[in-house]
């Protein structure tokens, strides 16, 4: 989906300069850049308000290192600012090709669940790179508890009763989720994505 960004954080904050100016390492640089951006976020909000009639959806791309956004004060501020004014939906993008290991998958899903509790917003899981590998294995794991457990037991025996209990928790989690498989490269799955997105917006409105 080739679309240039309307607002590029690089216009407001320059990452490398922030690092130099404050004498920070790469993480510190990203966090501080986000902080600086957050202080100007009201401008972004105004921009969104102005364009409300022109665009149906506003997509916000968050930093690649997820903790920077989900576990920082700035990320929280930005999320809450958006959610209190506009219907907001969290889109959790997963790399399908890197989630074929049931342990990785479970770890990823638990983390997604943790974000759900943080934001308390409707949630869509997008499994990207379906051009490399189809996401039906994941859907099966999410719909059939036993197949997931079997796959998991083959990988590990680490505290198996705990992981079994965790799988049951995840089972509940899946029922509150929407899942879509897409391929950003090929552009497939996007129709379904927008359908789920509309449903998610309805959820928000309830």
């Amino acid at each position, binding site marked *: 989906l080739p679309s240039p960004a309307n607002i590029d954080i690089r216009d407001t904050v320059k990452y490398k300069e922030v690092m130099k100016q404050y004498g920070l390492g790469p993480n510190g640089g990203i966090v501080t850049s986000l902080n600086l951006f957050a202080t100007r976020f009201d401008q972004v909000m105004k921009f969104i308000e102005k364009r409300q009639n022109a665009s149906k959806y506003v997509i916000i791309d968050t930093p690649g290192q997820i903790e920077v956004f989900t576990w920082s004060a700035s990320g929280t501020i930005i999320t809450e600012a958006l959610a209190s004014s506009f219907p907001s939906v969290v889109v959790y993008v997963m790399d399908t090709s890197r989630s074929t290991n049931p342990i990785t998958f479970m770890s*990823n899903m638990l983390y997604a669940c943790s974000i759900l509790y943080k934001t308390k917003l409707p949630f869509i899981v997008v499994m990207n790179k379906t051009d490399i590998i189809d996401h039906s294995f994941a859907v099966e794991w999410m719909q059939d508890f036993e197949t997931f457990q079997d796959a998991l037991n083959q990988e590990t025996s680490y505290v198996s009763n705990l992981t079994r209990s965790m799988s049951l928790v995840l089972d509940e989690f899946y029922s509150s989720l929407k899942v879509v498989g897409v391929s950003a490269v090929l552009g497939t799955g996007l129709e379904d994505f927008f359908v789920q997105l509309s449903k998610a917006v309805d959820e928000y409105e309830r």
Partner: protein
Amino acid sequence: LVPDIRELIEVDDVMEDDSLRFGPNGGLVFCMEYFANNFNWLEESLGHVEDDYILFDCPGQIELYTHLPVMKQLVEQLQQWEFRVCGVFLVDSQFMVESFKFISGILAALSAMISLEIPQINIMTKMDLLSKKAKKEIEKYLDPDMYSMIEDSTNILKSKMFKKLTKSICGLIDDYGMVRFLPFDRSDEESMNIVLQHIDFTIQYGEDLEFKEPKEYEEDKSALVDEYFQDHVDE
């Protein structure tokens, strides 16, 4: 006598390398993989260790644990060198004060725990920085019957969407002590002792899982603690 990975490789250098051309994420991944291919450097840097706790301060990015085999390789290597390994998961207590956030923290801890498959202790840090009211709030969540203790002013937690899920998570926390969070206050020696005791106990527990000859290894008790997910609070 602290080995610093920057003696081996630095993200800045990697990012500036023209032939590689990485951004901050790519640079980090490259460094981690480089580290994993050079464990002999670590072995030399550690030198001779006996009966010491060694702390590894690890990056906070979860992708490094879930999408790369590097940390797992490190754990396996350390175990091959006969270290006992325990994970310590740190979350700033200020991020855990509200019931939703607390549950969020637990889930993140679980997420990390199963990635590495080693015994893990979860710690809420900086308890000394919390207000009295905040401390009381958190104490509620440390209660054994968690679900009934959870209050929620927004009523979302017990709403249709969240109720069953919240209940099952609380059940998990109640059933498994391993999942609980320990409070940590740097200024309070007792809290530090409690954490240390838990770590010792956990390492023994790990021993039961992996080594079948516990008595023999009692003297050679070189323990190793992985410290990771260190949250940096915005200053």
